[in-house]
């Protein structure tokens, strides 16, 4: 019984790897820059955003503003790339979905894994940055593991909801991209949320992207203890998004195959 399950799992992993490989290859065929670009991209963001917005945060006493921007943008990109590609994953893998008996979740999982990997490449750039800004590492670094785990579960849950919605209502793509543009500004990626209108600030601290960025910064860059409520809120997100996403997905998964 267990043996069989493990076998299944191994097969799924194989499929994930094959799809990822194919996609990666296509991406790399499209550009010769490939992985180098993954490292370079957040660095460019860091450079531009921290230069152009330095006056905006002048009075906030943000220490190491470029690193602040870098951690923000890397997490933001992960969230945005993963959820967006998960949303489109069912429609874009249409033929595989209909022809094969793969579990539908695989297609989403593969997208999230891809985005995660890209984030990891981006994080390589963090090493020279930390050395340049003379930021020491502390034991708090290990906290990054639960942060990434929780945000990834949240992403997967949200991705499941979006993927289902996208099959029925393609316009959600436009709506979501407006929404994500807004998130870039309100998640404390490069503008601290203390700049937001007072009434909104309270609500904004419930935003999972903000939470993940805040926790990451505290453990990697600032070596500060994070507020315990931030951990609780992110945990709530993972549990809620995870279960709700799964519930909706399982309920609809057979229906959508007909719809696609």
């Amino acid at each position: 019984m267990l043996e069989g399950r493990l076998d299944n799992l191994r097969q799924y992993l194989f499929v994930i790897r094959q799809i990822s490989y194919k996609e990666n290859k296509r991406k790399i065929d499209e550009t010769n820059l490939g992985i180098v670009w993954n490292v370079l991209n957040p660095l460019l963001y860091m450079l531009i955003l921290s230069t152009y917005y330095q006056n905006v945060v002048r009075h906030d006493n943000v220490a190491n503003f470029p690193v602040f921007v870098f951690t923000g943008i890397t997490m933001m990109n992960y969230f945005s790339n993963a959820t967006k590609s998960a949303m489109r994953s069912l429609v874009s893998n249409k033929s595989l979905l209909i022809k094969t008996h793969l579990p539908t979740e695989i297609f989403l999982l593969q997208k999230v894994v891809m985005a995660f990997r890209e984030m990891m490449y981006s994080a390589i750039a963090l090493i020279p940055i930390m050395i340049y800004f003379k930021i020491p590492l502390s034991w708090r670094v290990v906290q990054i593991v639960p942060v990434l785990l929780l945000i990834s579960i949240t992403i997967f849950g949200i991705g499941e909801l979006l993927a289902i919605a996208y099959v029925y209502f393609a316009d959600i793509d436009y709506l979501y991209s407006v929404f994500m543009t807004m998130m870039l500004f309100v998640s404390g990626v490069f503008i601290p949320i203390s700049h937001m209108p007072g009434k909104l600030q309270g609500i904004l601290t419930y935003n999972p992207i903000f939470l993940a960025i805040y926790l990451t910064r505290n453990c990697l860059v600032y070596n500060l203890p994070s507020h315990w409520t931030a951990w609780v809120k992110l945990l709530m997100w993972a549990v809620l998004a995870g279960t709700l996403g799964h519930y909706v997905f399982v309920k609809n998964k057979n229906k959508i195959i007909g719809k696609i």
Partner: protein
Amino acid sequence: MNYGIKQYIFVIRELTAREIKRKYARSVLGIFWSVLNPLLFMIVMSLVFSGFMGRASDFPVYYVTGFTMWSMFSTATSTSMTAFEDNKNLFQKTKLPREIFVLSRDYTALVNLGFSFIALLIVLIVFRVRPNLAFLIIIVDVFFEMLFSIGVSFILATIYVFYKDIKFLWRNFIVLLVHMVALYIPIERYPENLHEITRLNPMFFYPNIARRCVLEGSFDIAELKLMVIWGVGTFLLGLLVFKYKENDIVKKL
């Protein structure tokens, strides 16, 4: 001459109609998104950024004017880049002048701008911005921005035939450029040493001329000069690059 100018325009129209249909093939609201998009962005951005402006009520107008002008450029250039490649078949089979494929994509962006101006109009009415004669400058401004975009489009489309990475690079460049043209926060909030270079950036001054007309009802001669020079200059350069490489493009495709 096998074709008259009327026929060219007809072809451009047909290609444009196809473009729009394709873009919104899976969408329910279709082209209506061109109206809705700027409005949605405006509402969202106003929530975030109104604190950064002197008068909070100015921000929606500031933003939506800049956004529509900016979108025309970004859509025009990023869609027309692949125009030759996408129309490969038509490219070889027909005797159409080859410029038409790029022009039709640019024209599509202009049509989109037309719809987005509906959104702008709504915003102007809601915020009681009085129309004035300076508004006529916007039309001139759009014309020159279009020339500029066409020039850039030709250059990009030519490069794309030989070097596919450009698509990827340009997409990322555009995303970064948004933050360098005072689209979200007024230029006064940028660091002093960046003002000069920002003012010379075409994608700053084309939207800015329109913003100035709408918000202040005035214009700046120096800016208008830049508008004409960059528009005409880039247009000619683009055409030149394309003409120079045209034969190579045909061979390569």
